């Protein structure tokens, strides 16, 4: 910028202000404010407000808020027949998904790490569920699970694994497992990408050295691959845990929590309370309980990521 255009002398106060505004200690905030203000308004505020709402009875229509203390929490844990079941479902759902996704992801990334022909094609195929919105995944799988015209029953009967049609999503015994399959399908690409990236940092020489020292395939897997995957593996597991625990979309579309509440998850329960029964405070209390249960994985994840940076 040329100084001549600024030759009109500025009043002293203004000049000082201008100097202060271009001070290098303030410059970062010009860049940060557009990001930080929306971030505060749209994440910090709702979070605090959501926690506050959990201690109120709030009516969406006359906007009447009454503080009720811990009443919602007491009601939930002592009087609500749904809550403990939903909590148990949520835990089974999350643990099952995390373990299976990790194991499938591990095998798949190990296979993709081999220098085989068509590797690019297989990698693309393994990652493709990522582009499929959860709603579309749920609808497509709903048809695959269809008791009469679905592909799954047909295939299983052809192989001879089952001898009569199963209504996967309508049967209380299979519904939770069926919804888990859809979630695993959607989360697998993430697990594969993370673990593959981890494997590619393992130098080939280590395996050769291991082989020379007499370690078998299993030994090398146990003592070289697993420890070196420790870091990415931890991140993959923590994130899958958090996502699975919070999940809503595909279960809402597949079963809506039924049959007989066997697929009722905490997020679905909270949603239905808020937007079907308009119990805003009560629904927020369910959300707060979810948040409390997630604090440990969220903290571990945040710490891990920061540790990697520093």
């Amino acid at each position, binding site marked *: 910028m040329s100084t001549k255009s600024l030759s009109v002398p500025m009043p002293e106060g203004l000049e000082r202000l201008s100097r202060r505004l271009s001070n290098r200690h303030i*410059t970062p905030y010009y860049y940060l404010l557009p990001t930080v203000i929306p*971030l505060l308004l749209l*994440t910090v505020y709702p979070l605090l407000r959501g926690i506050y709402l959990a201690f109120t009875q709030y009516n969406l229509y006359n906007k009447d808020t009454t503080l009720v203390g811990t009443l919602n929490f007491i009601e939930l844990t002592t009087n609500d027949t749904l809550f403990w079941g939903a909590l148990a479902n949520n835990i089974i759902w999350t643990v099952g998904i995390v373990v299976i996704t990790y194991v499938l992801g591990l095998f798949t990334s190990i296979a993709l790490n081999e220098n085989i022909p068509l590797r690019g094609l297989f990698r693309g195929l393994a990652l493709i569920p990522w582009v499929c919105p*959860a709603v579309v995944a749920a609808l497509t799988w709903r048809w695959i699970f269809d008791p009469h015209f679905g592909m799954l029953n047909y295939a299983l009967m052809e192989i001879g694994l089952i001898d009569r049609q199963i209504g996967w999503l309508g049967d209380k015994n299979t519904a939770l497992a069926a919804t888990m399959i859809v979630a695993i399908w959607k989360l697998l690409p993430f697990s594969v990408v993370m673990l593959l990236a981890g494997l590619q940092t393992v130098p080939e020489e280590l395996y050769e050295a291991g082989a020379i020292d007499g370690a078998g395939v299993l030994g090398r897997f146990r003592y070289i691959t697993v420890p070196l995957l420790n870091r990415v593996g931890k991140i993959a597991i923590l994130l899958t845990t958090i996502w699975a625990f*919070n999940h809503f979309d595909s279960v809402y579309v597949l079963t809506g929590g039924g049959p007989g509440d066997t697929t009722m998850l905490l997020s679905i329960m909270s949603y239905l309370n808020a937007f079907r029964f308009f119990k805003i405070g009560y629904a927020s209390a369910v959300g707060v309980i979810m948040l409390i249960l997630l604090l440990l994985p969220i903290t571990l994840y945040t710490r891990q990521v920061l540790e990697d940076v520093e």
Partner: protein
Amino acid sequence: MEQFVRRRLVRYVLAYAWLLIISTFTAFPFFWMLTSSFKARPEIFTRIPVLIPQEPTLANYNYVLNETPAGRYFLNSLYIATVTTLLALVLTTLGAYALSRFQFRMRRSLGVWLIAGQMFPGVLMLIPLFVTLTRLNLVNTYAGLIIVYTMGALPFSTWMLKGYFDTVPRELEDSAMIDGCSRVGAIRRVFLPVAAPGIAAVALFAFTIAWQEFMFALTMMKDQEKYPLSVGINFFVGIAGSVVWGNIMAMAVLIIVPGLIFFLFLQRYMISGLTAGAVKG
């Protein structure tokens, strides 16, 4: 030597066998969706499923595009996702630049918040946001959804982009500034072109969030003509009575195609973005 070759062969066979199984699992729903969208009704409701349509027809697409508001849903989604992407790009680039280049108070706390901010239960955030947006008359508007999605994309994108910016040497801008550029000029002329791949990953991430999101859209959009695709297709299944799968699958293909195109061209960036931390599915 012979033993070495044999071992290698075994490894290949095992790898292929596993990859065949797993890609059947991951890709079959896509295959099924695509082929079914070309099937006429008699080939859909059969006791023995028809894998490849014997008499392929465009009737499903014709019906979906002309007799249902799917085209409208598509444009709604496109509008919402495009504006979200642009907003997210501007905001995250600024924020990530500051985080990467400047020292300031609360830098670490901001970092923690960016990492943890996307992990909170969606429903817990949905309820107060819905209450607030109702007060601001932003429920049932595109603007409301765009605001929510930009917020959803912001924390992680900023963090991911900061990581990418850290790999771009500071000397680039410094030398441009010595040569007489202002900082903004140095960023625009020298820094941004180098940082483009990271920015592309953010664009992909923001677009995907806005294109795929369901829960907020379901709650906030009341007028049918404002539905994005994700809510539209679910609504369509709900009113169709006995589900007309051929039509639904044609609609599903319409939803997936833009994502698929992005995926094919930007797969590399997506992977680098994912591994820079993580991406919300």
